[in-house]
């Protein structure tokens, strides 16, 4: 019993929930800030394009929603060490790290692509479709991490 349910078992689960939201928010914050500087520089000349240019910021926000979902899932399953095995703690730590670092990578990609994309869209509006496609492919990186995290969570 004691080797299955050590006192430090829930520590890993808590760290998983924390790292899910921390790293996802880190990526989302970088994406928002980087794309936001591009929007601010672009809007000086083309203020009518602001609504189109908000899309990278919204997509970066969705990265944080991925982390939020996984953090809420893990937090709902946390419990006292008497009924929370170390194996569940490891599983939850892995799930949190999966969605966290995938969200960090996706947020970096969205920020850089969004910055260059909105600056380019101001000069060539036909770039918009390409920018959306690249942003979706960057967003899907975070979605892969979410899928792995949910799949781990069901173990």
């Amino acid at each position, binding site marked *: 019993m004691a080797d299955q349910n050590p006192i430090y078992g829930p520590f890993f689960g808590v760290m998983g929930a924390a790292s899910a939201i921390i790293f996802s928010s880190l990526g989302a914050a970088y994406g928002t800030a980087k794309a936001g500087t591009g929007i601010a*520089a672009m809007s000086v000349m083309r203020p009518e394009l*602001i*609504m189109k240019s908000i*899309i990278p910021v*919204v997509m970066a926000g*969705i990265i944080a*929603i991925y982390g939020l979902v996984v953090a809420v*899932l893990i937090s709902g399953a946390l419990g006292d060490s008497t009924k929370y095995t170390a194996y569940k703690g490891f599983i939850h730590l892995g799930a949190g790290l999966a969605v966290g670092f995938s969200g960090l990578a996706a947020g970096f990609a969205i920020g850089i692509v969004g910055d260059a994309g909105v600056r380019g869209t101001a000069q060539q509006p036909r770039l918009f479709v390409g920018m959306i496609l690249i942003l979706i492919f960057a967003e899907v990186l975070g979605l892969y991490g979410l899928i792995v995290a949910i799949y781990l*969570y069901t173990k």
Partner: protein
Amino acid sequence: MFNINSNISNPAGPFSQMSNTDSTPIMQAPEPAGPSNSGQERPDLEVLTTVFYYCFTIIVMPVLSFFVTKHIVFGGMFGVDSVTSNVYSAIAAIIVVHISLAMFIKRAYSEADRVKPQKQD
């Protein structure tokens, strides 16, 4: 179509203080626009309302749909256990947020097409 970067040879423009680590040349401020320029664009309040509506939808709807589906649909009506209802609720929330995002992109795309013919230089 105006040339945005026509003044590259003069890097110390009026907005050079806004420069960040990006090496793209900072756009120069346009000539002071006359009052006739502001009449072509849609009212700012309408754009603000639209953006707030979609941002509210994208932020609130997934969280709402997660807890609604968890506690009412899967937990209450179907009576599945906790882990399964959590997973299905999370999937429902992610689907809802992507539907909201698709609606926002569609709106932004059609918005730009509607504004573009009015633009002149």
